[in-house]
Every structure is written in C-alpha cells, then in structure tokens.
C-alpha cells in the first residue's frame, strides 16, 4: 500500500517519494514516473501552488459528488489524489493517476503512443496506411460510444456541488480506448476550476488556466480563462470531430464573426434514421453547443448523455452503452430537460450523405538516379540508399530526382565497380519487386496491386524469353544447328 493510498488524499512529503524518470515537460512543470506507485505520476510545478486551492481540488470528488459519479470520475479522469510537500512545507506538486496502459496505441513500428483524439479526427484509412492502426469507421457506434463516455464524465463534473469545468479538453488531454468498450481518460485535471451555480469561478481570479489552440472555446477572449460553458463547446466540437472523423476547423472563422454551416457526412442507413437525419434533435444540440452568439444557451452534458443514449439505442448499439456503464460505473442518469433556444444559432449542422474520401498516398524516397553520368563520375553524384524499416521493401523502380547542375564534372573514374554496382542495384530492384508482388498477392488491400503484378509478370516473361534465346544460342553449335 503506497503512502498516497494510505493517506487517502492527505499531503505526501516529497522526500518520502521515489521519483523516477521524466515523462513529460510543459510550461507549468514536469511529470515524473513513480517506480513504487506505477499507477500514479508526480507532477511537479515550477512555482509552489496555493495549498488552499490544492486542498479544494483534491477533495472535490469526495465532497461534491455522489457515489456513482465519484466512480465515473475515478474511472475516466486523472483527478489529483494528493498534494506533494517539499522540505519547506510548500506544495511542490501533485500525485495524479497515470493513464492505464490501454489508453495507448501500438504503431506499425512497434512503439506505443498515447491514444490522443488526433487519431480519430481524420479518415481512418489514413491512419491505417500511416500507422497500421484499424480504427472504427466514421459515424461507427464506437465513436458515438466514446463521446457518450466523455459526456457522462462531464455530466459528473457539472452535477457536483460546486460544479467544475476542465477548460482544456484538447486532443492530448482526452485519451481514449476501445479495448474494453468505449472509454475516455481525461488528464490535466489540475487545470479544472470550481464554479458556483451562477457560473462564477470560485478560485483565485489571478490564476491562468490553459486552453489549447484548435480545441479552445472561441467565446473566450485571448488571455481570459475558460468559462463554465467552455466544456460544453468542447463536447459539441469533440462530437463533430470524433464521430465525423474530420477536423472541421472552425474557431478562427467563428472568432471573425462568420456564421458557420457544417456538412456532416453520414452513411445512408444512419441518414434515414429519425434520430440522426435532417432535423433530428442531436443536430440542434450540436448547433447550440457550438454557438458563439449565445454561450449561455449551450446544452449541458446531461442533454448529450440522454441524446446519445437514444441514438445508441436507435442504431442497435445498446451494448456499447452498457460497456460504458460497466467501465465507468452506474447506469442511466435522469433524463435531461432541454430548454428551447431563445434565438437562431450562428452554427448550422447539416447531415449529408457520406462520400468516398481520397485514398492516402504513400511517398517513397527518391533512389539514386541511375544514369551514365552517375556511372562514370561517382564523385559528382550523391548516392542514396533506402534506410531499413518503414513500409516494407523499398521501391524497385528508381525514380528520377530533379537535378540542378553545379560545377563541371571531374575526370571519369574506372567503369567496372560502377557496372558491378549497377548489377547489384538491378538485382535488388528485381528482388524488391517480387517481394512487393508477393505482398500484393497476400494482402488484397495492397496499393497498386494490379500494376505491380503486371510489371512483375512482364519482366519475368521477358527474362525467360531472353534466357531461352541465350540457351538456344549456346547449345545450337553442339547439336548441329
């Protein structure tokens, strides 16, 4: 049992901790591993924190939430567990839960990386080609499930007394996993602020809270802190980006005062559903959540919870919902009441039929230009080989690099080594091509499959004909022709 666990939120002395390797470094401080408490990290700050604020933050789930919501926060947020005091008794940092291992993705290169929202905000075909990851299709039930899991956490934040707002629900702060069903894990919760029922912040007004560009609330002027409505904007934005599998960049335009209209692609079977088709309440929820003209009208997370439960039911994915409950604890919260909108929104969301997106194209490095000048004058040419790793065997056909001539070429070098090098290169190219052809045969999705196979066949048939001709030429004198 660790000191932090034993003390249940009571401060821990820095000298009692065994601080391990550095995990991350940011503007505010550094995050370290704790070898003896692998489920926690130590977040140290450049400047000591206000002990009163830290105490309010650490004890918030215990004091402000019912049992069910406390379980949701414990499962889905890295809520600070205790203050860490330095030798002078000042708050040097916090002990914070570490994201469980399932909130990571293993790329093709074998390394694991934190599962940030950025993986979900583009066509999954791109991520499959780039990293070898199989991510759910746009508008797939798992994507609705992830937003549902986040909405349930934010509902708990909102239901507390006092309620809290995170303020920086950005790509790096909202981690996700599908291993046990859709789950989210929100980090950097020390950025959170407590608000009273009127939405007034209860903390130190001089404290600066972070917001990440591209994930920020455009209703907050630069240099100001996120408000209690900012998380509501983030939830609507994350819904659009995660379910739509696209970036939908809009804050800069909203800031310039432009009304926004979003074309949200949906597969035809979802588009015909009453809960997702044109005019469905979900789109009104989204429009109001993203509104800049009336931030006070942004729907609370509870409205999203209710709406997404209805959608998951309607698309036959109630199991996804139950998986979220199993991971976060509890069942359905009480249905939310959605107030009518007082004015027309400055954001319009239009569900449209999804169209095929352009296929991602892989770039290959330019191999050594193979031509007479390079053969004869090696000094004039930088030879370029393919590094190992990457997507598999190197491209067989040497692409021609655009060149710009420099100084005049020095005298010619002996030819033989270059001829041997050329032969080696040709052999390598031939082998590479066949490896690619084999891959193309084994994996149906392989790029340019037909072309590779055709090229392979053409080369091999030509080689066979040439070999037979040579054999005939060599053997003909001995058999009397």
């Amino acid at each position, binding site marked *: 049992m660790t000191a932090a666990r034993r003390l249940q939120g009571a401060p821990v002395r820095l000298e009692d901790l065994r601080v391990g390797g550095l995990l991350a470094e940011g503007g505010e401080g550094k995050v370290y591993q704790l070898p003896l408490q692998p489920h926690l990290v130590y977040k140290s700050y450049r400047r000591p924190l206000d002990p009163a604020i830290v105490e309010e933050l650490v004890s918030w789930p215990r004091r402000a939430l019912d049992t069910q919501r406390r379980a949701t926060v414990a499962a889905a947020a890295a809520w600070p567990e205790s203050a860490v005091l330095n030798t002078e008794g000042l708050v040097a940092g916090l002990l914070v839960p570490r994201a469980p291992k399932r909130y990571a993705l293993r790329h093709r290169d074998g390394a694991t990386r934190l599962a940030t929202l950025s993986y979900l905000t583009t066509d999954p075909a*791109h991520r499959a080609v780039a990293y070898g990851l199989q991510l759910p299709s746009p508008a797939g039930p798992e994507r609705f499930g992830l937003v549902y899991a986040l909405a349930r956490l934010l509902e708990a934040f909102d239901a507390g007394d006092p309620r809290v707002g995170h303020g920086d629900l950005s790509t790096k702060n909202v981690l996700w996993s599908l291993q046990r069903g859709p789950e989210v894990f929100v980090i950097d919760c020390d950025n959170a602020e407590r608000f009273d029922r009127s939405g007034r912040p209860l903390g130190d007004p001089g404290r600066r809270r972070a917001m990440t560009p591209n994930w920020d609330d455009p209703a907050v002027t630069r240099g100001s802190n996120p408000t209690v409505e900012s998380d509501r904007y983030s939830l609507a934005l994350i819904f659009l980006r995660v379910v739509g599998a696209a970036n939908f960049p809009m804050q800069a335009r909203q800031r310039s005062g432009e009304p926004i209209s979003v074309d949200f692609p949906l597969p035809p079977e979802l588009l015909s559903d009453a809960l997702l088709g044109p005019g469905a309440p979900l789109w009104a929820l989204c429009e109001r959540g993203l509104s800049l003209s009336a931030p006070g009208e942004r729907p609370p997370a509870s409205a999203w919870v209710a709406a997404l439960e209805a959608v998951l039911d309607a698309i036959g994915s109630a199991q996804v919902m139950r998986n979220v409950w199993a991971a976060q604890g509890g069942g359905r919260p009480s249905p939310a009441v959605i107030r009518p909108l007082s004015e027309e929104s400055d954001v319009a969301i239009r569900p449209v039929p999804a169209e095929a997106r352009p296929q991602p194209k892989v770039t290959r490095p330019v191999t050594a230009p193979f031509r007479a000048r390079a053969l004869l004058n090696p000094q004039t040419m930088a030879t370029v080989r393919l590094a190992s790793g990457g997507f598999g065997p190197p491209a067989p056909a040497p692409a021609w690099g655009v060149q710009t001539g420099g100084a005049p070429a020095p005298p010619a070098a002996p030819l033989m080594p270059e001829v041997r090098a050329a032969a080696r290169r040709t052999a390598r190219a031939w082998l590479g091509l066949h490896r690619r052809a084999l891959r193309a045969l084994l994996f149906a999705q392989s790029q340019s499959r037909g072309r590779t196979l055709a090229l392979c066949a053409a080369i091999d048939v030509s080689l066979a004909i040439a070999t037979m001709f040579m054999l005939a030429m060599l053997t003909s004198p001995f058999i009397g022709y």
Partner: protein
Amino acid sequence: MSTTNVSVEERYSVFPFYICLDISASMAGSPIDAVNHQLPILRSKLGEDPAVAEVIRLGIVTFSDVAVTVLPLCDLSLVEALPEVSAQGRTSYAAAFDHLRQTIEDDYARSRARGDRWYRPAVIFISDGRPTDDTDRWKAALERLHDPAWKRRPNVLAFGFGDADPAVLATVTASKPQRAFIATEGAEPSRIIPELISGLIQSIVSSSASVYSGSAELVPPELPNMTAISVDHLD
C-alpha cells in the same frame, strides 16, 4: 455576413519545411553517419505524431556538386522510409539554391492542384563548409531564392559547423536575426548533428502547434552548442 461552409474535406493550411543538406566530401565519415542515424528519428518524432504530421510537410534536398531531391515534400506519416545519404563531391551553394527555388515552385503548384493551402515555406540549410562555386554564381542563385517579387520565397534558417563561414551563413538567411547559427568552435560534428536534429524536431513541433492557433510561426530551435550569428540592422 455570408455563411461559411465547413465540410469534411476542410483542412488546415500546411507548413512546408525543406531540409537542404550539404553532403559534400567533407561530410564523409562520422558527420554523414550521424545524419543517417538521425533522419529516421526525425521521421519517427514528426511522422508518428498525428497532430504534427497533419500540418507539417517535409522535403529533403541534398547538395554537393549537384542538388537532388532525395525526399519529395510529403506528409511524414505517409512516407515509406527516409533516404540514406552518402558524402561525395564539392559544395555548390548555387546548385542548392536554384534547385530549391524550382522544387518549391513545382511543389506549390502540385499542392494547390490538390486544394492545399500553404504557409510560407521554411528552408533549413545545413552546411559544414564554404561554397566551392564562384561567389557571383551562388549569390545570384541566392538572390533568386530570396527574390521579393517571388511570392513563394521561403524563410531560410541556416546552421553551420566545421568550416562553415558565419558571414556566408548570415547571407544565406538574407541577414535576418535569429536565423543563422554556427557551432561552438571545436564542437564535434558527431555531437552537433544529433543536437541539431533534435533542436529541429522541437522547432518543427512548436511551429506545428502555432499552425493550429491560426497564425503560423517559424519557431527557431534551441541549440546548446550553437550560437545565433548576430545580424546588423540595415539603415
């Protein structure tokens, strides 16, 4: 005010970076080995982070007697492998600058055709020596690269070590402050190159973050063993 339509195809503007690498004979041995060791790290750090790869495009041009595009401008998450380079030949700055101008122009036309929007490209010029070509010739090529009438003219950051001349590097960056850097005297290239590449990675990551804020900035790298070459103000 008219309504702006945002569709699934709406993308961020991209920030193109060109690494322009001197691979002349003086780079042979440990410097070029260090480059070949570091390039895959550059790819991994930039390409395997989806948020960075989304907005950064990187191309690699090498130069000695001639300049060659060894990695066409690309999304680093979609590159099969990075090239491995070997050192040979002399140091033609003219070849490098002429090739860069042509490459940027061609890449821009291709990107526009695909619907991409560009921030002003950045060139990261790395050299361990002085130009071996005629001064008038490389200066004329440099002028074409910095030509104020050419809309796609890049911002150039220059990094020198070995025999590189601080005055020449400052000229390469059009004498802009905090753009040209020279290694501490006596610093080993095998040590400088890893520091330089890791500084560049940090610089590109920070620059990518600025793209998301809607106003891209070319963030200069922090290099422990390099100092910025001071550049005078013009009257």
